């Protein structure tokens, strides 16, 4: 974990209100794992007072990329930053996805509460800008040698808001799309698309699912994973304060003897869906 002023190399709108930012951040680029995030101070004055968290979308040597949607004052300020300016960031932060990187490395899955002994393939489920961390994951899995096929399900409100479809295809992933208005692919929710995947039920080898998107979507996917008993990791989106595990402001309820709390910023943002208590 470092704090640094990262030089902005690029900051451009790639779709309506969706931006891609490229930063020069060698120390972070070298360490960051898929699912981890950086915590950015978008301006030196306030409000907004607190930093804003962004998951890392891509790493290219010493450069890291962010993909973000303008949702409020913080991201609005960020979207107006120019190339050559500097951004005060902390990172890499949090615990990312636990994924198979080599063929024999599927072992670790047994340690997960819902871990099976065999998995058929890898399914990534992205909702909206949730694609951000999942592209980094797909690239990291592909760079390893798992030989497991990757299926990517991308959901968006309409086709104009679909992101990264081509990037996943170029990696050799199979991609299926769901839009709520039916302008592209399956008409409906991406979680419905997941439930239609053939190998979910029965005793056959199960897929492992990684999901990132709005909390309602993750909740639905968590339910599906419980019903069909496949391992599933979800990356939670939460307002963060410190980002380093000190303030205890971002907790989620997890299973314990009754229940206990875990910090989204430090113990997550990626959690095994089986340990979360959805409310």
């Amino acid at each position, binding site marked *: 974990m470092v704090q640094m002023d990262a030089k902005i190399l690029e900051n451009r709108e790639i779709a309506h209100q969706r931006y891609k930012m490229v930063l020069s951040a060698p120390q972070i680029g070298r360490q960051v794992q898929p699912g981890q995030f950086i915590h950015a101070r978008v301006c030196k004055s*306030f409000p907004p007072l607190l930093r804003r968290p962004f998951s890392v979308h891509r790493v290219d040597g010493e450069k890291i990329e962010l993909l973000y949607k303008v949702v409020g004052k913080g991201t609005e300020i960020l979207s107006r930053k120019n190339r050559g300016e500097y951004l005060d960031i902390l990172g890499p932060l949090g615990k990312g996805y636990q994924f198979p990187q080599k063929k024999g490395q599927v072992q670790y899955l047994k340690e997960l509460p819902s871990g099976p002994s065999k998995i058929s393939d890898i399914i990534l489920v992205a909702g909206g800008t949730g694609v951000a961390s999942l592209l980094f994951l797909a690239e990291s899995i592909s760079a390893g040698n798992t030989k497991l096929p990757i299926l990517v399900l991308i959901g968006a409100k309409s086709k104009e808001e679909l992101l990264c479809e081509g990037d996943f295809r170029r990696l050799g992933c199979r991609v299926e799309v769901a839009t709520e208005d039916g302008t592209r692919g399956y008409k409906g929710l991406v979680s419905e698309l997941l439930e239609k995947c053939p190998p979910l039920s029965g005793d056959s080898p199960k897929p492992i699912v990684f999901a990132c998107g709005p909390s309602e979507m993750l909740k639905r996917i968590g339910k599906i994973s419980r019903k069909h008993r496949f391992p599933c990791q979800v990356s939670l989106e939460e307002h963060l304060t410190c980002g380093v595990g000190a303030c205890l402001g971002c*907790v989620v309820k997890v299973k314990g003897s009754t229940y206990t709390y875990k910090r989204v910023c430090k113990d997550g943002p990626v959690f095994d869906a089986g340990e979360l208590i959805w409310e």
Partner: protein
Amino acid sequence: MRKAKEKPPNLRIKLAGISLRNPVMVASGTFGYGEEYAELVDLNRLGAIVVKTITLKPRLGNEPPRIVETASGILNSIGLQNVGIDAFINEKLPFFRKYDVPLIVSIAGETIDEYVQLAKTLRREKIAALELNLSCPNIKYKKKLMFAQDPQATHQVVSRVRKATSLPLMVKLSPNVTDIASIAKVCEEAGADGVSLINTFTGMAIDVESREPILRQITGGLSGPAIKPIALRMVYEVHKVVGIPIIGIGGIMTVGDALEFIIAGAEAIAIGTGNFVDPLTPIKVINGIRKYMIKNKIKDIKSIVGSLKCPKD
């Protein structure tokens, strides 16, 4: 002729018998148990660390949402989530052995006996001082009051803990009172070695679409730059009536903020919310104080404590 080398300004202070290398501390609840920030901040450069409040038993804390950002501030209702005194001593304290920084342990109880028991339990530990958190909005003593809102209860708890420990004793005061100076005076009379002020202001925020409070506990404690002018006024008022040292807390983000508190009468200051915004805030404030002293030819930081020049009537 060779100019005599200027002696570097002296930032060292002695606070209630504890020697601090500078007057800049980090406030309870905003710096975890130290380990969370150790990769980013050289802990040995801090004046002191006040760790997150410890209770006798572990506490789960409140249901989320626990924090919401407001205009230049944050509202929190964490609910004193902490590992409890035993786990603190066994799992958290050993971390500090490799550091050379005074550790102030913040404690809170639901009864006076709990405060006494906590103080006794910590008697043999290598810590610099205790801070009695009498002002946590999540612990109510009686009649929906915090200890620090009731002068009698404050007197009782401070004097009982005083008898139970020889460690220096700070008392963290609540701003949610009519006259904070009278409560500070009670602390002094009951044997406190210092007062830390202020804790958070009770506040709230509402989601107008759902018409629900944003925090699950409805209300929470407001901190950050939004409260700084009020905190400063309270330090000024308390400084006029007590002789024991004051630790100034409340929305300090810059060296200018810190100096205001010192000039108003604080012998030391603590950074709280500022740590979340920039973990290097305390270090930047320390460097800034040194620069200010050099520029203004101030040899010893003590000389400007309470040096406010008010117009004469």
